[in-house]
């Protein structure tokens, strides 16, 4: 019986492949070396030690009644943030659905590029820029925040929705078209029932993201808990920063747990 030739898991490497591998390795190491040498690893800001700052952020708020009594105020700001995120997410969902149908290849065929371009353009612009534009347009306050959040969310939701629509079973549309239904009826009775659970799941997920990002948007004056947060950091009032961060962490975690539970039930 002859010995079978050994089978290697990987295809044998050619000489050219080896050369390419080591060349790439060399170039990448050189880049890392330059990056490390060029970066200054020097602490050059505040006099206070990082540990003192950390203690003031996360421990001090619980030690004095003065600080604890401020919690309700910041929870109020957090509620405003959540309200901004909710309103923004709701508006985004309503706007994203028609755009998603326009962008789905199986529904709008060659016109889907129009929808895709709209969605890509929205996603290319950072949220903070939208917030600054809307603060300039409608003034400081939560209204600007809602507008910024909703426009920005349309970009992501529209893309996710379009992908859901592209993955559906088209045979039900055939059935409705074959019985004389028009395009709108085919979408309403053939497509929507298939995609709605996924749509709501993505919307809730996006709401979760919106809560976090509307915290940041407050920094440019778009309402919510971001404004007191940025103010406190400017004043180096770390106890207040700590209070606010604790409120944000607790609420974001709660929303995360809740939305996870809801989404599990939906799909």
């Amino acid at each position, binding site marked *: 019986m002859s010995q079978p030739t050994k089978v290697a898991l990987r295809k044998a490497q050619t000489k050219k492949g080896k050369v390419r591998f080591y060349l790439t390795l060399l170039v990448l190491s050189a880049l890392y070396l330059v990056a490390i040498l060029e970066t200054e690893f020097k602490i050059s800001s505040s006099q206070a030690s990082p540990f003192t700052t950390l203690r003031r952020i996360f421990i001090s708020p619980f030690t004095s009644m003065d600080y604890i009594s401020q919690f309700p105020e910041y929870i109020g700001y957090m509620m405003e943030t959540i309200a901004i995120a909710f309103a923004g997410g709701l508006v985004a969902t309503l706007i994203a659905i028609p755009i998603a149908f326009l962008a789905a290849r199986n529904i709008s065929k060659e016109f889907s590029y129009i929808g895709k371009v709209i969605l890509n353009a929205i996603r290319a612009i950072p949220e903070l820029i939208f917030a600054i534009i809307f603060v300039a347009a409608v003034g400081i306050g939560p209204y600007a925040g809602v507008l910024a959040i909703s426009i920005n969310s349309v970009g992501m939701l529209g893309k996710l929705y379009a992908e859901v629509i592209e993955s559906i079973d088209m*045979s*039900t549309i*055939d*059935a*409705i*078209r*074959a*019985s*004389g*239904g*028009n395009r*709108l*009826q*085919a979408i*309403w*009775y*053939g497509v929507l*029932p*298939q995609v709605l*659970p996924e749509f709501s799941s993505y919307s809730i997920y996006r709401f979760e993201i919106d809560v976090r990002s509307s915290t940041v948007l407050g920094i440019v004056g778009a309402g919510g808990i971001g404004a007191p947060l940025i103010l406190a950091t400017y004043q180096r009032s770390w106890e207040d920063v700590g209070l606010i961060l604790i409120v944000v962490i607790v609420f974001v975690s709660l929303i995360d747990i809740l939305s996870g539970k809801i989404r599990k039930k939906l799909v």
Partner: protein
Amino acid sequence: MYPNGHQGLKNINLKINDGEFVVIVGMSGAGKSSLIRSINRMVTPTEGELLIDNENVLAFREKKLRQLRTNVGMVFQNYNLVKRMSVLRNVMSGRLGHTNTFRSLLGLFPQEDLQLAMNNLKRVGIAEKAYVRADQLSGGQQQRVSIARVLTQQPKVILADEPVASLDPPTSHRVMKDLRRVSKEDNLTTIVNLHFIDMAMEYADRIIGLRDGEVVFDGPISEVTEATFEEIYGRPIKDDDLIGSEEA
């Protein structure tokens, strides 16, 4: 003829009479589906004429086409139901061609249409499942739902494209029986694609045999013999071509 140059059907010249129950048999790829889908223009033949009630449907544009399709119902191999909708909603979706778009979007179907749908579910024996989600039903029940849907459309013609190909033999027989019964009750012209010979013999009034896109047999059931099928299939008949009797 398909755009890729493959000729699906050639020299088809058929006349199907009102109220007939016609079964088209032939091997896979013989052109059965193409033939049946041409009738409601789910595919459009490149040449020729197709007359329904003396109108050439190949010339129809969007609006006329929809009108045609409300009169020609279709039953599919894979049922094509929306699985997350209730049975009754699925049945009502057959009524969309008759319903004003705006009303249908709001779900405001006329009461008599709902009665009609419920009645048709009764006729195929699954009225008690009306509010169950379609994906909870077995294959045979789902195909009955799609028959109820087609009846609710109140068509003149029913096209059935391999309606029992995904079902087991006893269920197939029951579904075919239902289909034949309702189509006779409503005096509907019915055209069914099948590839099981014995089943075609049992339910058809008339058999059309297709081979390589050409009609090789066309005649009433009384003229059909085993030799006819050997001609259609181009080879001797094997056990695989038979589904077996209802008790199988």
